[in-house]
Structures are given as structure tokens and as C-alpha cells.
């Protein structure tokens, strides 16, 4: 057994490599979803919940509407910078991990060709290839390093090329999400200070949860309801806690 496989069979090595690929392509340090649509949906949902909680709290302590506006706006500016910056940072962290993985894989191809060949054979044997055909497929794939690297990234590490958005584009999504949710809720607060805030928050949360579900290919309805329930719980929790603390 070659040291490259660390005591494992080629196929086990491939399975481990896939896990590594999955980790590299996910947002391991945060909850932000990759992509500008996801970032927008996530940011708008969180902004709506935060504004709803703030409004609940401030209404409970009897703050006048103009103060609620000013304090919420100040808070949201800080929140906007954080969300946009964080979204970009997470995107760049993911991109750096992916680039590290691709560099490692290229190094493997250049320095451990024999082991890469074994991994490739294990992968294609698992797909049903055998005998001379397996040898031929392996030979063809090993012939061109560019093609081999692409195959190893996709088949061994389970990574997809050309699907991620640039971190700045993702951050722009977050910016639009925060700004959009703030705008909708501000207008609602202005015209219907009581029901408007609740309804607009519900609308923003439903839309963003629905979009997220669509992007993740989940069923939208349960996803929307669960998100609305969680938002209601946080707003309700803040409301009742405020009643206890500021009677």
C-alpha cells in the first residue's frame, strides 16, 4: 500500500477525498449560502427578523416612532456593513480552500501519477468498467493533464467547476437583501405602524425562505412556515421578555 493512500484502499481514499471536496466547497465557517441569490435571500430574511425584534422591543418600551426609525436605521447601517463584508469574506475563504485543493490535486498528478491512476481505476471500476476497457479509459484520461485534473476534481473530490459566484457578487447579493428588506419594512412602518410591520416582515421572510427552498430544491411551503414560525418565536420571545423586564 502506498503512503499516499495512508493505509487505505484506493476507493476509500476517493471517498475521503470527496468529503474533503465537499468541505472545501461549503461555507464551513458560517451559515451563509454560496451564490448571490442565496446571499440576498439569507440577508433579507435575517434583516427582517432583526427589524421585527427591534420594533417589538421598542414598541413595548413605548419609544416614539421617529426614534424607532432612527435607531433602527443606525443599527441597519452597521448590520449592512457586517453582512456585506462577512458574505464576501466567507466567499473568499471558500475560494481560497478550493484553490488550495486544486493546487494539491495538481501536485498529486505531477508527483504521484501511479497512485492517481489507481484512484482513477477505482473510480471507473465502481462505475462498472472492467478489464481492457477500464485500462483504455484510464489511459485516455491520464493522457492529458488538464483533462485529468478536471476529472479528478469532479469525480474524486466531487467538486463542480464554473458554478460559484465571485465573492464580491455574493456580497452584492447580501447588500441588496439587507437594503431591500429595510426598504420594504420602512415603508410599511411608515404607513401601517402596527400591522404593516408584521405583514411586511412576514412577506420578506416568506419570499426569502421560498427563494432559498427553491435554490436548495426543498419543498417551499414547509420551509416558509418553519421560517415564519421561528421569526414569530423570536419576535414573541422578545415581546414577552420586554413585558417582564420593562413592565
Amino acid at each position: 500500500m502506498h503512503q499516499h493512500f495512508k493505509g487505505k484502499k484506493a476507493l476509500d481514499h476517493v471517498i475521503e477525498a470527496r468529503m474533503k471536496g465537499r468541505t472545501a466547497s461549503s461555507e464551513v465557517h458560517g451559515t451563509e449560502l454560496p451564490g448571490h441569490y442565496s446571499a440576498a435571500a439569507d440577508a433579507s430574511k435575517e434583516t427582517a427578523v432583526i427589524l421585527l425584534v427591534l420594533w417589538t422591543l421598542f414598541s413595548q418600551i413605548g419609544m416614539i416612532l421617529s426614534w424607532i426609525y432612527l435607531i433602527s436605521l443606525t443599527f441597519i447601517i452597521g448590520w449592512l456593513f457586517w453582512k456585506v463584508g462577512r458574505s464576501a469574506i466567507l466567499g473568499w475563504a471558500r475560494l481560497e480552500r478550493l484553490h488550495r485543493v486544486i493546487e494539491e490535486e495538481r501536485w498529486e498528478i505531477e508527483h504521484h501519477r501511479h497512485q492517481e491512476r489507481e484512484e482513477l481505476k477505482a473510480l471507473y471500476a465502481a462505475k462498472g468498467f472492467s478489464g481492457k476497457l477500464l485500462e483504455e479509459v484510464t489511459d485516455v484520461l491520464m493522457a492529458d493533464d488538464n483533462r485529468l485534473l478536471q476529472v479528478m476534481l469532479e469525480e474524486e473530490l466531487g467538486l463542480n467547476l464554473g458554478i460559484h459566484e465571485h465573492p464580491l457578487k455574493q456580497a452584492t447579493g447580501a447588500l441588496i437583501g439587507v437594503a431591500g428588506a429595510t426598504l420594504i419594512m420602512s415603508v410599511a412602518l411608515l404607513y401601517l405602524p402596527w400591522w404593516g410591520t408584521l405583514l411586511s416582515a412576514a412577506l420578506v421572510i416568506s419570499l426569502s425562505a421560498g427563494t432559498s427552498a427553491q435554490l436548495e430544491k426543498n419543498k417551499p411551503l414547509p420551509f416558509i412556515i418553519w421560517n415564519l414560525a421561528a421569526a414569530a418565536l423570536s419576535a414573541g420571545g422578545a415581546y414577552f421578555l420586554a413585558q417582564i423586564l420593562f413592565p
Partner: protein
Amino acid sequence: MKPYLFDEFFSSGLEESISPFLTKKSRTWGKNLSLKSSSSAAVLLLFAFLLSFVNLPSSHLLLSLVYFLVGTPALISALHDLKNLEINIDILMTTAAFVAILLGSGLEGALLLVLFALSHSLEDLVTHKAKSAIHNLNHIAPKFAYVLAPDKTLFEKSVKEITPGTHLFIKTGEIVPLDGTIIEGSSSVNLVHLTGESLPLPKTIGDTLPAGARNLEAALVIEVTRTNSDSTLTRIIQLVTAAAHAKPRMQRLLDRFGGPYATTIISLTLLFALALPLFFPLPYLGTEGAIYRALAFLIAASPCALILATPTAYLSALSACARQGILLKGGVTLDALATCKTIAFDKTGTLTTGDLLCTSFEPLTPSPLSPDEVLSIAYGLERQVVHPIATAICRLAEEKKLTPAAITSFQSHPGSHLEGRYGALPVAIGLPEKIAPDLPPSTTDHILAALRIGPHLYLFRFTDQIRKDLPPLMQKLTHLKLTPIMLTGDHAANAHAVGKTLGLSHIFADLRPEDKLTRVAALSSQHGLAMVGDGINDAPALARATVGISMGRIGSAAAVDASDAILLKDDLHLLPFLFHKARQTIRISKQNITLSLAVIILASTPALLGLVPLWAAVLLHEGGTLLVGLNSLRLLRTPY
């Protein structure tokens, strides 16, 4: 779907603007990011400055964005350098910018950061352009070959995996991927990529083929004799990449001086900040305080402009040359080119094109046929193949408005001859040793082809053509105060004939390779000599000359090894541009160094004496840096 080409991505240093993981549309977001970010910071800084007169908190809000955009990368870079115990300009600037906040001079600190980031991003831009030229060279090397298995099936295999003894199938028109010996088939190959020689060479079973040769006529099977790591192209790429790091003389001097200078300035700043109030009636804090003055001194004395003075100039020049198809092995080549007073040319392949011209044909036996009939038969045979000799014969026949003779039973024997029947007569044209074995070997430089029509023999003579528009080029070189000379192994008569056409007065003919080398050595020691050559035979002279300039799209393996500059497009008309660019680079580097030193001397002492406020020190210092950068960018302009 075509496989993704990762080579460019890796050779760019994993640049995100070409990251394979990002969508194609999304990649544009990553282009020139440092320039975009520093430009945005500059705009925000302008607004922060304007707002500082009417609303200070709004100004501070914008300033925090400026510090975020350009301060964060500077801080990361400075901490990284500190971790590696490297005291340099980044640390000087970042310290100054962040200490400025503590002194209530955030605007000045931000200005310093913005201008510093702008200079860096412009430098990145120039470096990136220079890198891409080297990347293009990588594209030429064949990545895989067709392996012929024992059961006669063909499959692709990476050249890195092919071991000696493997049988490779080389299709017509393909580049031979690895060195080998022919075991099946006959063809002619052209070694233009290796030796600059475009004339086809006949090759048959038992002959060796070098990697990089182009197979012209028929498919061949070769047995590999050397692995890819010994291949010519691999060596060229390694050589060029390594040589690109060769630093010019002025740059080496500045590098040596940079580290100790930065340490001295930081030490002096600390000393002034702490000691000035002990000797003079100065407070520590405030705009008249010792810390403020020391900071102004630190900024004014920082050698940003000095450090950027030469690399930006040389990189711009290298980039401008690369865009024109001239690959230079580092800035040292520009230094050497600027010292050259003489330029020597090899004749064959350099001053001449390598395309054949049919100069004459004559009967070797009494001929019953007219010259036009003979040429028409040769035309009838040669028009059926693609070969430089065939092209020359067809061109001559077309010029004479002849129609090709009707040839039947045509057969081609690649690398040897063509045959057929003209009416009842057997006809053949090809290598004289095949068609007329009794013919004595040629004693002239002419290339020969023999034609047999029945019992009658004819001999065709071909010669190289002089490259187009060379006389004006020689005049341009003379205007640049360069003396063009010709060094050739050819006969004196031929050499003088070519020399006369070109307007050359200094001609050295009948030179054996060792004579050529001695001559080049003598000329190089008298004054700078640039030698322009193409083939393996020129390699010693190219290596010995002050600057060796090689021809060929990738140059001859030996010539590229030996030369310092490569004319990728075989275009000699780029030589005046090259010499002009080299001299301009030295001139601009000297201007940059003078300007940088002047700024340091004129700004640092008054800053310490409190005569120059912090903002003025920043403007003087960074203005100087920007001027140096912009002055260097003038070298990117290509026209001459």
C-alpha cells in the same frame, strides 16, 4: 465539453479572475481588484475630505470605509512581513498610516494608504502583463502523444508518462512530441522550431527525430529515445521562467540598499519621536509635537518611489516587448542592449527567409525538350504535393503562365522522390542521389532537385530569398548609432552580393563556427555587440555576444539556450524598437531614481524641522511615487 485549461490559472498564481470554480460571468468581478478597490477608496477619500469641512462624523464614516478597503490589505501584508522578520517599506507606510489616526490625522493616513495602494495596483497590472507572455510559451509544448500499442491500436498518453522504448504514431503535420528513432515510414520533416531551418529534411527508417520537429509528408512510427524531462521545449520554458527573475544592475543595487535603509528610517523615527522633546522645547503630542514631526519625517523619507523606480520601468519595457513578440530574459538584457554599438547578423535563415526560389534548371544530357516543356512536366509532378521545393517549382511555372503536364500513374515516395508517366515516358523528380545517383555531390550552397524524363536528366537549383524590406531596416539601425555587420560561413562572393543588396559595408565571410566565435569575442570586448542568429551553429556566437538575439517562433533549442532575446515572430523589423526600448528604459530608470532621491532629500529634513506638515509630506512622498509609476508606464507605449 472541452476540458478546462488549468495552465493559465496556475501560471497566473491562482488568480481569481480566471478561477475555474467561478462562473464565466462572475470572473470579471475579480479583474484588477486591487485597482478597483484603491480607486473606490480614492473616491471615498475625496468625499471624506469634502465632508470634513461640513460634517465631521460623516467624513469619519467614509474614512472608516477607506481604511477598511486599503488599510486592511496593507495591515495584513505588514504583519506578514513582520512575522518573517522583514522590515520594509510596507511596514513603514502602514505604521505611519495607522499612527496618524492616533494623532487625529486620519485623512492624511488614509491619503497615504490610498496612494500607496494605487501605486501597488499599477505595479500589479504591469507584472501581470509581463507574466502572460511567459504563459504563452507553455501553449506550444505538446501535452500528449499517440502511442501505438503492440496490437496496433492507438491511444493518447501524456508525454510525461511515456518512457523510452514506447512506439509513437506521428500524423502528417504534427509536431514530434519526444525524441525518437523512425521504425516505420518515410517522410520529410522541418526543424523550423528547433534550428530556424525551414528546409525539409528527408527522414526514413533508422533516422533520429528530435522533439519539436514538424512531420510534413507522411505518417511515421518512432521509438522514443528520451523522456519528456529532457525535451527541448521543457528546457526552454524552465530557462525563460528562471531568467525572467534575473534582475537588472540598478535593481540589484536598490535591493541591497532597501532593507538597511528601511531599518535606519524606522530607528531614526523612534529616536526623533522619543528624543526631540529632551533637547528642544517640544511637546510629544499635537501637530507641533515630536511624534507628529517624526511621523512626517518617516513618510517623507520612505523610499517608496525609489523602490518602485526601476522594477516598474523594466517591467513595463518587458511587457511592451512581449506584446510585440519579443521575449527578453529579464531586465539584464535591456541593460546589455543599451550598451551595444554593433549589431551582427548571421546570413542564412536570418537575413534570408528560408523560402526557396528556383533560380535555374539545366539539362545534364542533350535534351530534345524545350525548357518550358521540362518545367511543365516538373510542374505536373510537383503540384500534387506540399513541399518547399514543389512550391518553388510551381511558383516559377505559374509566373511563366505554363500549364501543368498531364501525369498518369503518379506515386509519391515521401522523403525521396515523386514519379509517374508523361504519355509513355516514365518521369521522376526528387533528391539527386535517388534520381541521378552518378551525379557528383554539389559543391555550392544551392539546393538541388533532379528530374528524369525518360532517359534524359535535368537539374533544378534553388536558393534562399532575402527577407523583405531589409535595406530600410539597416538604415534605421544606423540612425540608432548601431553599426550593422554580417558574419557568415558562406562564400565571400555570395555574402558580398547579399551585403550589397542590403547596404552593408562590414562583411565577414568564409567564417568557420570557431572563426565566427573569435570575431564575436573580439567585437564584444571592444564595444557592446548584439548578435542575431537562428540555428544551432549560431549558438556559441549568441552566447558570447553582449546580447544574443535568436530567431524562430520558439527559437532553436540551442539558440534559445544561448540567446538573451527571442524574436517570436521572426520579424527583424522589431530590432529598432527593441534597441530604442532598452535605451528608453535606462533613461526612464535614471529619471525615476533622480526624482525619488530629490523628493526624499527635499521633504524629509523640512518635515523634521516642522516646516512641512504631515499632509504635505504625504502628498510629496506619494506624489513622487505616482509620478515614478506614471513615468514608467510611458514605456508601455509601443510605437517607435
